[in-house]
C-alpha cells in the first residue's frame, strides 16, 4: 500500500528539431491517493496521462512541482502495465516475468508461475511473445506488474489496443487479481465505462494537464458492466465529462 502525493506538478517538453514548440503536458496537477484504493485517471487523448504515470514511476522528470510515492517512508515499489505489452521478444513468457525480479530462486519462479496462472497463462509460459495473441501478451504484462509485489500499481490504458471482447475479459482478469492483492492502483484511461467498472475514485484530467473533477465511485465488487447500478453511475460520470469538455471549449472561446 502506497501513498502518492502530487503538488503543483508541471511538465513541459522542450522543443525538438521535428516539432519546434514547447509542449505543456501537465499544467499543475494536485492529487493525493492513499490506501488500498483503485483510482482511475480519466482524460481525453493528449491530456498528459502517460506523462503523469511516467513521472510517478520515476522514468520521466517533472519540470516543477513535487511528486512523492512512498510506502512506509521509503520509495514505493512500482509495478507498471503499459499501453502495449512491452515484452522482450527474445525471452519466453516465463523469462519475461523473471527479468523483473531481483533474485532468481525456485521461489521467485513459483511466484511467476502463480501470477501466470492467475491470468490463465501457465500453459504458455515456455512460448515466446510472438506466439501469443495481443490479449495474451497484455495479460503477461499484467502478471508481470503484480509479480514485483508492488506497493503501487500503474496502468496506462492497458486495454485500449484490444478489441471490445478481449478488453472485457481482461478487465475481469484484472479485477480478479486486484481483489486478491488490493494494491494501491493508478489506472489511466479515456474510457468512461472502464473507469466506472474498475475504480473506487475517478480523477478527471482535462487537456493541458489539470485535474478537473474528483468523483468517488461507491459500487460493490466484483462489478458487472451490465449491472443497471453501474450503468447509471456511468451515465452520471459521462455527464460530468461532457460538462468538462464544454468548459474547456468555452474557456478556449473566452481567451
Amino acid at each position: 500500500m502506497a501513498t502518492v502525493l502530487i503538488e503543483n506538478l508541471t511538465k513541459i517538453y522542450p522543443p525538438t528539431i521535428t516539432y519546434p514548440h514547447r509542449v505543456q503536458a501537465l499544467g499543475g496537477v494536485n492529487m493525493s491517493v492513499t490506501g488500498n484504493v483503485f483510482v482511475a485517471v480519466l482524460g481525453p487523448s493528449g491530456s498528459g496521462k502517460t506523462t503523469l504515470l511516467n513521472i510517478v514511476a520515476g522514468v520521466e522528470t517533472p519540470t516543477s512541482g513535487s511528486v512523492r510515492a512512498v510506502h512506509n517512508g521509503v520509495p514505493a515499489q512500482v509495478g507498471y502495465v503499459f499501453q502495449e505489452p512491452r515484452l522482450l521478444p527474445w525471452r519466453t513468457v516465463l523469462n519475461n516475468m523473471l527479468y523483473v525480479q531481483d533474485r532468481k530462486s525456485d521461489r521467485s519462479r513459483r511466484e511467476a508461475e502463480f501470477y501466470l496462472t492467475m491470468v490463465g497463462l501457465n500453459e504458455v509460459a515456455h512460448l515466446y511473445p510472438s506466439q501469443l495473441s495481443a490479449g495474451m501478451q497484455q495479460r503477461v504484462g499484467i502478471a508481470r506488474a503484480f509479480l514485483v509485489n508492488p506497493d503501487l500499481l500503474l496502468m496506462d490504458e492497458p486495454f485500449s489496443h484490444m478489441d471490445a471482447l478481449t478488453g472485457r475479459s481482461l478487465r475481469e482478469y484484472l479485477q480478479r487479481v486486484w481483489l486478491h492483492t488490493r494494491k494501491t492502483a493508478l489506472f489511466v484511461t479515456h474510457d468512461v465505462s472502464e473507469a466506472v467498472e474498475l475504480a473506487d475514485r475517478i480523477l478527471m484530467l482535462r487537456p493541458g494537464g489539470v485535474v478537473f473533477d474528483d468523483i468517488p465511485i461507491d459500487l460493490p465488487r466484483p462489478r458487472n458492466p451490465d449491472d443497471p447500478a453501474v450503468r447509471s453511475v456511468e451515465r452520471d460520470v459521462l455527464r460530468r465529462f461532457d460538462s468538462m469538455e464544454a468548459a474547456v471549449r468555452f474557456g478556449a472561446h473566452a481567451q
Partner: protein
Amino acid sequence: MLTVPSVTPDAISALSSREMRRAVMRRWLFRFSVLIGWAAFIGVWYFFSRLVFNPQQLPEPHVVAGESWTLITERDFRTNMQASLVRVLGGFLLAIVISCGLGWLIAYNAWWRTLLRTIVQLVVSTPIVALAILTLVVFGVSSLGPVITTAVVATPYIMMNVAQGLTGVDRRLIVMSESFGRTRSQIIAGVLLPSSLISVLAGARLAFAVAWRMELLTEIFAASEGVGFQIRRSFESYDVRGMIAWTVLFIAVMLIFENLVFRQIERRLQGRTA
C-alpha cells in the same frame, strides 16, 4: 452480391496435399540447381584449361583436387592453415571488440558519429591491395601486420551495424526496464545486447568475408608463413597447381566456417524473434 464457393473438406485436403507435393518438388529443384551450379562451374573450368589456355597455365579441376589432397596430407598444410586461421580470427575478434566501443559512440554521440563515418568511408573505399602493401611498409614481415590490417578492414562493417542495432533498440523496452528498477548493466545485457544482436551478426558476417580475403592478401605481401605466403611461394616457383590448390583449400575452409558458425547462430536467433 458476392457468392462464396462452397469449400468441402475433401477439396481442402486435396488442395493441401497438392501444395505439399509442390513444396517438396520445389525443394528438390532448389537442391538440384545448386548441383547444376557446381557442375557448370567445373565445366567452365575444364573448358578454359583445355581449350582457351593450356593445362600448364590453368590446371584442370581433377589435377587441382589431387594436388589439394597431397597438400592436406603433408605436415606443411596444418602449420600454414593454422597460422592463417589464427590471424583471421585474431583480426576478426579484435575488430569486434573495437566495433563495440566505436559503435556505441556512433549511436549516442553526434560528434563521433560524423568523425567515424568519414573514416569509415575512407577505409572502405581504399583498395585492399593498397592496404596490404601499406601493412608491409608499416609492420614489415610479421604476424602482427596481417592481424591489424584485417581488424582495420573488418571494423567498419561491424561498427556500423553495432550502431544501427543500438539506435534501433525499442526505447519503450528501456523505459519498461527502468520502471521495474533494472540496473544499467541489467538493461545492457537484457535489452541492448539481444536486440542489436541480429543487426550486429549481419555486419559480422560481411566483415568476416572481407576479413579473410584481406588477411590472405596481406600474407602474400607481408608474412613468412600462412596460406597467403604459400601462394606467393608457389607463384615464385611457377607452381600454378600449388597456387590454385592452396587458394581452393583456404576458400573451402573459410566457407565451411562461415556456414557452420554464422548460419547456425542466425538460424537460432531468427527462430526466436520472428
